[in-house]
């Protein structure tokens, strides 16, 4: 290498502060790995969780600090135009950092329960989060691709974390194969866009299009189509969604929650940025695509969730339904629509992480008890969990005074404002369908509560014995659509004693009242608290999302 060359090379100035959150989340896992490799004794999982929690908090702090920098000074780019520093990216960083902290808390309890040691979960989760942040802040298609790969590859592995369960390996395999397939399509799309515009840099692409927008270039359109496919896969839009239920069901539950929040955050952030900011001029080309995909995503997600008995699968379809909502905001292609999408994305992250945290606890050791039957009478056995899950599910259903309601309202009002009336109506219909299966779980937890407990011991035992049988299925079927014919149940009356305990909420007869791991309880409480607090006191978060788009680069 000649000295001449070295002197000619002027490295770009790296604005370290601008990429501080990513750096923290990339460096922390290296530290954890080093610690784990160098320590003579096997470290308890709490050490790694502590490390990840600290890294998440540090990154959260850095993100908030960035926010205070961006707000007065406006948006900009850093590291030679590779990343954008604007409200949009910082908002997603705040979300992802928060999810990291929550994932550390939940992961600790889960790994301890399952007896899985080692730092891998924490290391991979942090890498994955860093990848999502990169996707959100990237101002270059290449960096988006790399961020996507970092995020996804770590998630593939996390999905296969639990080697004892067959489903975990299958989930990893499916996610990996399809993910690699969609990544290849995405990459080919970048190639075509690069050919059509001469750059992979988003502002340069936008600049090029601003000067050459006269004709709809076939190459660019093909590239856009391929990019859309890549994004749709990541955010689980129909018909690119088919991996979602399998992977959500198969993955270890804390990973599912993490995946649902982080992968969607990264995917949607990049999608919104690329299509709204760079291809904004071509909205006539992509808007109808988004419209159609949003419609089928909304409806398929809601309808398929209705027929699920496995709660994780049900939540997977519900997350597909949520993706449809966020797409409605993008379809509006207005600043308000984007703000609505961001808001939805932000609050959805907390809802879904909290929900899956509860599911983690309910699944008990082995992570297997995901049947709806396990939720029957939960309020009696685990009042805290039941209350939190009820709150989070109601929020997902869009019940007022939660963030979920505001998110749906915000999205639909943005769609109405953009004159997408049909889409707004379809979104509302799908929300109505979706509310049904959320409420079904809530009713199951509460209405099924009164058996067993409080009865004389022999009676309770009878109830428990029967619970494992057909009585277990009946209330679920009864609340299922079109299945009210579960008339086998005895209709005994209020004051009359209930000798059979009404079919046994003690269904499994399991001693799961042992308590919720403190860390997971904390995470659940944080998520639920966020959902309720900012559902009532909406101003801060709504304002945050609105400013994020005003600063949009």
């Amino acid at each position, binding site marked *: 290498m000649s000295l001449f060359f070295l002197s000619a090379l002027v490295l770009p100035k790296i604005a370290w502060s601008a990429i501080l959150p990513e750096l923290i989340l990339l460096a922390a896992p290296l530290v954890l790995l080093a610690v784990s490799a160098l320590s003579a004794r096997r470290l308890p999982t709490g050490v790694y969780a502590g490390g990840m929690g600290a890294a998440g908090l540090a990154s959260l702090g850095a993100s908030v600090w960035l926010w205070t920098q961006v707000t007065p000074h406006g948006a900009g780019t850093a590291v030679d135009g590779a990343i954008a520093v604007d409200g949009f990216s910082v908002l997603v960083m705040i979300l992802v950092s928060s999810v990291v902290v929550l994932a550390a808390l939940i992961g600790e309890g889960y790994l301890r329960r399952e007896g899985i040691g080692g730092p891998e979960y924490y290391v991979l989760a942090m890498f994955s989060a860093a990848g999502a942040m990169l996707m959100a802040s990237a101002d270059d298609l290449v960096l988006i691709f790399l961020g996507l790969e970092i995020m996804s*590859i770590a998630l593939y592995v996390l999905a296969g974390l639990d080697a004892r369960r067959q489903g975990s390996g299958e989930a990893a395999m499916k996610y990996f*194969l399809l993910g*690699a397939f969609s990544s290849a399509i995405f990459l080919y799309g970048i190639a075509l866009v690069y050919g059509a515009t001469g750059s992979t840099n988003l502002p340069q692409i936008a600049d090029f299009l601003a000067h050459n927008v006269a004709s709809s270039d076939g190459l660019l359109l093909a590239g856009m189509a391929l990019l859309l496919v890549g994004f749709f896969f990541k955010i689980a839009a129909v018909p690119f969604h088919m991996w979602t239920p399998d992977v959500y069901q198969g993955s270890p539950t804390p990973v599912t929650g993490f995946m649902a929040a982080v992968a969607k955050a990264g995917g949607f952030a990049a999608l919104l940025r690329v299509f709204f900011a760079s291809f904004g001029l071509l909205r006539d080309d992509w808007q109808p695509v988004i419209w159609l995909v949003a419609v089928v995503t909304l409806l398929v997600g809601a309808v398929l969730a209705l027929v699920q008995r496995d709660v994780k699968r049900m939540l997977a379809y519900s997350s597909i339904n949520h993706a449809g909502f966020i797409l409605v905001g993008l379809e509006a292609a207005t600043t308000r629509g984007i703000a609505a999408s961001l808001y939805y994305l932000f609050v959805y992250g907390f809802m879904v992480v909290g929900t899956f945290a509860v599911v983690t606890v309910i699944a008990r050791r082995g992570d297997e008890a995901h049947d709806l039957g396990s939720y029957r009478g939960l309020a009696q056995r685990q009042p805290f969990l039941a209350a939190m899950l009820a709150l989070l599910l109601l929020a997902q259903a869009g019940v007022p005074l939660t963030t979920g309601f505001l998110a749906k309202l915000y999205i639909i009002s943005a769609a109405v404002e953009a004159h997408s009336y049909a889409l707004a109506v379809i979104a509302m219909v799908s929300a109505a369908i979706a509310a049904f299966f959320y409420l079904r779980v809530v009713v199951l937890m509460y209405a099924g509560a009164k058996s067993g407990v409080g009865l004389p011991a022999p009676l309770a035992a009878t109830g428990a014995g029967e619970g494992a049988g057909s009585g277990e299925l009946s209330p679920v079927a009864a609340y299922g659509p079109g299945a009210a014919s579960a008339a086998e149940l005895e209709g005994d009356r209020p004051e009359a004693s209930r000798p059979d305990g009404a079919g046994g909420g003690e269904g499994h007869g399991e001693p799961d009242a042992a308590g919720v791991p403190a860390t997971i309880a904390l995470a659940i409480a944080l998520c639920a608290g966020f959902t309720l607090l900012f559902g009532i006191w909406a101003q801060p978060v709504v304002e945050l999302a609105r400013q994020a788009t005003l600063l949009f680069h």
Partner: protein
Amino acid sequence: MTDVSGAWYLSLAAALFGIGAFGLLVRRNVLVMFMCVELMLNAANLTFVTFARMLNDIAGQAVVFFVLVVAAAEVVVGLAIIVAIFRRRREATADDLHILRG
């Protein structure tokens, strides 16, 4: 006009991409499916390099450089997942994996 027109290269790359995609859709052996993904990545690489020449722009070549790294990482992870699953199965058929469905 001495070089072969870019359109030929791009068409070839598209064909390669199509074959790769088709292979992933029809093969049942996970390893071969994975090889088909590699074909698709190569098609994208060829497209990048061709555009780099057509646009006289070095960026296209630089991207290929990164894609190679991504491909390497993907292969390691993918093969590790495959090994983890199929170590005792003796049959690397993706069709065996469908306990999760519906």
